[in-house]
């Protein structure tokens, strides 16, 4: 399992790098006098995501630091403390430490332990001080700086900005000079009293190194001088100057490419396929020897284009296991931490989904799985007491259904607590009533800052998780549904759209239009005889395979002109959807082919009965039927007009 997790380290590093960059950008642009709560929220969420991810992979140092950072950010976004330039500086410098730590994990070199500890200390001090911030406190803290020599540079910055007394400015000025001197080993007086410390740290480092020698031999042995210099950062936050242990840069086994570039390529290849089929139409008209040679070349081109298309498509599609495989470790670590027994079951891991969706699924899934274990599954004693097996089960499942992919996170725990949610919602001033349908009550947990957990742990309970989950899911055009019953467990279903998936389709013609029916839904097709068609009220039904099948006319449903309406004159395709089995009446069958699903929603909106559109060989647009939606929209309300 370790190997499996390792292969996802790269993704985590890349994502964390992005999160750090985001945070940095947001912090740089943050308006200190009038901070935008949304920006603070974003910074907070980024920190939260890094914390979550580092928890999964067991990067404890990273997790500890982000946890403290998050505490401070939480206060800031809840406006419990006033964000000042000094605090922003502290955050920025913490980010630097985070970057170094991340790099150390990435290169598998020694962690900048001292820096991390120092950062945590600074953050904690700031947190403590900021909580009860008064002028006196501030002044006091300045004097503390004299001895602590930890964060005085930061404070110094703070005071340069503030209108505090001259004396204090002087203090901090001396401090920062001192630090500078310290860094460059100047002979000036100020630095003299910091020297012993340098030596001390150097000694410490050597001690550490001594231990290090017992560690595996592949540990790089560095010269003492470098060691000393490296561990000098007792005040790392104020000293970005430090020799970085540079491991030889590794060859990149993969490159990250902007998905928009791939999208552009997919579109271009689509155009290429269309051009190619136009060319082959022309080629068929050429006769004689040249025609034969042209035909050979066109066949070759056709093969090549198909291969290009396939490889471009495969660039984007990945098995959902890429995401799921992270979770056995999460579940194991978390359940042992919480003293719970949880079995993880993974279903449908080979379902292929778009790469961009995979990347964006990681955060929400992590939150949901952690939530299920933390809040859902009960302790073994409780489970036994309520007559359940000692081990709780969490199921992660993925399946393709019609035009969407459904990812489920299902646990057999206690279920959501309706009373608690309603109580909390009332506290938060949300308009609720106990008569609300369950599904609406469950949706309340996606409100920002909504948490029914009694205390904040590093697992969950801050109320940020579900907020992030919903935002992430919605940002990729999905939605999330909750089913829950008290005492039996809860299930979260993430419905994702099938953007840019390929579907094997049966092309049928109706009037002058072509429709694509996903082959997945097709049972068979045939020309009905008069005796098979029965009339039931205003509706027609088919008697075949010893049962009655509702019959839907695609001409009427899709409002096509000049399509066949009389069943015996057309072809009936029998379909099976998750909801119903029925037949659709079409004019004729055109053929079977793989089509690329294109979103109608990108420039228009969702259309009932339609999963998407595709572009046919002649450049025309064809609609792809959504068997589920046709069943839901048409068959249960046979006599009404289909409304959008």
């Amino acid at each position, binding site marked *: 399992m370790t190997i499996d997790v390792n292969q996802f380290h790269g993704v985590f590093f890349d994502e964390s790098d992005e999160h750090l960059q985001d945070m940095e950008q947001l912090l740089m642009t943050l308006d200190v006098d009038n901070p935008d709560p949304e920006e603070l929220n974003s910074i907070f969420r980024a920190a939260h995501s890094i914390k979550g991810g580092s928890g999964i992979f067991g990067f404890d140092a990273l997790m500890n630091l982000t946890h403290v950072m998050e505490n401070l950010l939480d206060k800031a976004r809840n406006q419990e403390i006033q964000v000042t330039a000094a605090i922003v500086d502290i955050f920025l410098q913490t980010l630097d430490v985070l970057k170094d730590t991340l790099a150390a994990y990435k290169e598998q070199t020694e962690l900048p332990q001292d820096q991390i500890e120092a950062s945590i200390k600074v953050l904690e001090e700031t947190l403590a001080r900021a909580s009860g911030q008064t002028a006196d406190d501030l002044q006091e803290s300045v004097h503390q700086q004299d001895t602590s020599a930890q964060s005085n540079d930061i404070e110094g910055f703070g005071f340069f900005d503030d209108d505090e007394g001259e004396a204090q400015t002087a203090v901090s000025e001396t401090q920062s000079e001192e630090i500078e001197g310290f860094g460059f080993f100047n002979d000036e007086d100020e630095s003299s009293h910091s020297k012993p410390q340098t030596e001390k740290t150097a000694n410490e480092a050597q001690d550490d190194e001594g231990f290090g020698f017992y560690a595996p031999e592949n540990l790089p042995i560095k010269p003492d001088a470098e060691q000393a210099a490296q561990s000098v950062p007792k005040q790392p936050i104020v000293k970005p100057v430090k020799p970085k242990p540079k491991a030889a840069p590794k060859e990149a086994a993969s490159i990250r490419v902007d998905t928009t570039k791939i999208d552009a390529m*997919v*579109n*271009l290849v*689509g*155009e290429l396929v269309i051009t190619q089929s136009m060319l082959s139409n022309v080629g068929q008209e050429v006769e004689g020897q040249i025609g034969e040679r042209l035909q050979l070349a066109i066949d070759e081109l056709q093969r090549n284009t198909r291969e290009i298309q396939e490889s471009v498509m495969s660039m984007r599609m990945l098995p959902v296991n890429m995401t799921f495989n992270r979770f056995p470790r999460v579940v194991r670590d978390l359940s042992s931490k919480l003293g719970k027994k949880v079995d993880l079951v993974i279903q449908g891991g080979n379902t292929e989904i778009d790469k961009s969706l995979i990347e964006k699924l990681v955060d929400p899934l992590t939150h949901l799985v952690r939530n299920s274990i933390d809040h859902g599954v009960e302790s073994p004693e409780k489970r036994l007491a309520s007559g359940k097996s000692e081990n709780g089960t969490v199921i992660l499942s993925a399946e393709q259904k019609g035009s969407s992919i459904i990812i489920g996170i299902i646990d057999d725990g206690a279920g959501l607590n309706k009373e608690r949610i309603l109580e909390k919602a009332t506290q938060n001033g949300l308009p609720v009533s106990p008569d609300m349908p369950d599904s609406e009550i469950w949706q309340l947990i996606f409100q920002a800052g909504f948490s029914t957990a009694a205390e904040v742990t590093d697992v969950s309970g801050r109320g940020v998780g579900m907020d992030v989950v919903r935002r992430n899911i*919605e940002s990729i055009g999905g939605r999330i549904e909750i089913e829950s019953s008290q005492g039996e467990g809860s299930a979260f279903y993430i419905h994702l759209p099938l953007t840019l998936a390929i579907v094997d389709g049966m092309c049928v013609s109706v009037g002058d*239009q072509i429709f694509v029916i996903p082959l997945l839904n097709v049972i068979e097709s045939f020309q009905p005889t008069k005796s098979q068609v029965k009339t039931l009220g205003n509706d027609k039904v088919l008697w075949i395979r010893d049962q009655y099948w509702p019959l839907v006319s695609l001409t009427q*449903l*899709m*409002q*096509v002109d000049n399509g066949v309406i009389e069943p015996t004159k057309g072809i009936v395709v029998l379909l099976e959807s998750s909801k119903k089995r029925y037949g659709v009446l079409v004019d004729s069958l055109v053929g079977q082919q793989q089509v690329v699903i*294109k*979103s*109608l*929603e*990108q*420039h*228009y*909106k*969702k*259309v*009932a*009965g*339609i999963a998407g*559109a595709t*572009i046919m060989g002649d*450049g*025309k*647009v*064809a*609609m792809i039927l959504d068997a589920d939606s046709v069943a839901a929209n048409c068959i249960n309300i046979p006599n009404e007009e*289909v*409304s*959008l």
Partner: protein
Amino acid sequence: MSEAALQQAVSASQENEFLSFVLGEEHYALDITTVKEIRGYEQVTKIANAPSFIKGVINLRGDIVPIVDLRIKFNVGEATYNDFTIVIMLNVHDRIVGIVVDGVSDVIRLSEEDMLPPPEFGVAFDSKYLHGLADVDEHMVILVNIESLITSNELGLVETKTQAVEV
């Protein structure tokens, strides 16, 4: 700086280019920066249950783009389709929409002063979708606020949910 020079400077900086087009008897114009391209009308693929003014969708180099016939929507002119029927492809808020018009006439430059407030009645468009009126070569040109029209619920091109996200 003299008053006149100042005014000139202001007006020069605020001069905008509009693309004028014809719907029936009336002359309209829209902000040229929203225009992606102009092309001839081509066969569309119909969309079921769409209002009659949404003709259908076309393939615009891999994008599935809806085509709206403003003549039907605003009941001006006659909705005929021939070789001279023009579609203006617009790019509004990252969405591409094609609008069918009777013809494209000219690119006109207008400054703020040239724009007169829109009338409350007498124009097929609701005044909230108008920037105003302008007098160009003795024609009255109606300046359409195409962004608000395309994203409005009236055309139903944008799902209400998506609209909320975009705002």
